[in-house]
């Protein structure tokens, strides 16, 4: 029989830890639950023995949860992480997810809906490294929508992919509306289906939502599947050129939609050519982007400052943003008058849609 998975719970509140220990020890898989009241103690425990899951508070003295998570993400990339916090601000949720946590729960929600929380923990303890949508293992978004429709459910599916958020409205098993990337209806639905991974959650139904989609769900899914197959396997040169042209136009519309002047997509050295829109100076900009990411990652590693989120820079002519995204890095340029506070969000939206 396999040894039980180990869970480490980190919180500065000893009473809360006791409660968690008692609750999590009763999980169906019977995990071995350990606790730590300080970040340094937790990191020492993670160094000394293998854990499957870390459940971490955010607000703690000396080293807070975000710092711990950034260290954990680098030192123990296989470790599943859950944030269990009393901080209700949405900003902390997005910052925690940006650090790669698997789940973010409020302490109040956990107490109110402990059964669902326990199910989530069980799913995380047993989860393999497959792709797919978090919450339903190895299922594509098509499968999830079909399951909801076959069950004749009424719900709102909120789907998140990085900074992109979309919604699907289902009423009595029928898809009635969709919203994604500024589009609505069938167009939005097709865009959502093109997403390869993400997270989703069920929100309460909205019976009063106006209907914009009238086609049956099976017809929509079939059409989308055919479009995806055609894009993946172009049968003739004309089809390929047409698809390439459509892609360029789509990227240009993204660029102008977010108010950016240019984008350079930079693959790792030796793995393809940089791709750019809105600039002729592709090679020098790509070279600087590679150099900047390399130097920043080196500094981040030496200082144990967590993963590189982005690099912002400016001069009198432009504002620049370097965003690592998967294996690629993106350099996005904006005019100097663009609102600096919104560039990160706009840049993330732009590159998240870039390869869709």
């Amino acid at each position: 029989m396999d040894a039980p998975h180990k869970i480490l719970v980190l919180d500065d509140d000893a009473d809360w830890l006791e409660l968690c220990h008692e609750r999590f020890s009763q999980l169906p898989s019977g995990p071995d639950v350990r606790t730590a009241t300080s970040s340094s103690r937790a990191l020492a425990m993670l160094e000394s023995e293998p854990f499957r899951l870390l459940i971490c508070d955010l607000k703690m003295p000396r080293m807070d949860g975000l710092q711990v998570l950034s260290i954990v993400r680098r030192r123990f990339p296989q470790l599943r992480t859950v944030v269990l916090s009393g901080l209700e601000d949405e900003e902390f949720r997005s910052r925690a997810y940006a650090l790669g946590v698997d789940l973010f729960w409020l302490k109040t929600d956990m107490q109110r809906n402990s059964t669902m929380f326990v199910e989530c923990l069980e799913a995380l303890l047993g989860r393999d490294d497959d792709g797919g949508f978090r919450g339903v293992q190895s299922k594509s978004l098509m499968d999830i929508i079909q399951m909801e429709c076959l069950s004749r459910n009424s719900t709102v599916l909120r789907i998140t992919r990085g900074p992109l958020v979309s919604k699907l409205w289902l009423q009595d098993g029928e898809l009635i509306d969709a919203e994604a990337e500024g589009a609505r209806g069938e167009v939005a639905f097709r865009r959502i289906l093109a997403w390869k991974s993400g997270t989703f959650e069920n929100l309460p139904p909205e019976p009063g939502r106006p209907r914009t989609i009238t086609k049956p769900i099976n017809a929509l899914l079939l059409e989308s599947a055919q479009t995806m197959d055609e894009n993946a396997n172009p049968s003739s040169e004309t089809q390929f050129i047409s698809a390439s042209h459509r892609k360029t136009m789509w990227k240009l519309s993204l660029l102008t939609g977010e108010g950016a002047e240019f984008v350079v997509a930079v693959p790792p050295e030796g793995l393809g050519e940089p791709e750019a829109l809105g600039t002729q100076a592709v090679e020098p900009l790509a070279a600087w982007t590679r150099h900047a990411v390399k130097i920043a990652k080196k500094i981040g590693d030496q200082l144990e400052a967590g993963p590189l989120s982005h690099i912002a820079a400016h001069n009198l002519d432009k504002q620049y943003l370097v965003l690592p995204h998967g294996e690629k890095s993106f350099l996005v340029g904006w005019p100097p008058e663009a609102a600096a506070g919104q560039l990160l969000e706009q840049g993330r939206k732009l590159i998240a849609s870039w390869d869709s």
Partner: protein
Amino acid sequence: MGFLKKLFQAFRSRAAVQQLPSGSMTVDRDGLVVTTTVSSAYPQALLNEIGSGVLSLFREARAAQIPLAEVSLHFGSLRITAREIRGGAIIFLFPQTARSTPNN
């Protein structure tokens, strides 16, 4: 007794976590620290690494025809902002905590 002390010292040193640097510093054209408000307990070599790293970002940007006035490196738990000044740079180090906002 001595053996136990050594054992626990070894365990503690392995688990030790370097605090993030906080403060500001100026570096010369070679990236060496000239003045700093970062704690003297923080390793000087790491500060010099930051200095030479950010200077190379400014230098390579000039080579790419995009001379920069300011660069900010945003990590999960630290932000480094550098401004180029005559013959070097001034660098600000801001640890990011749960109480700080993403842009400060």
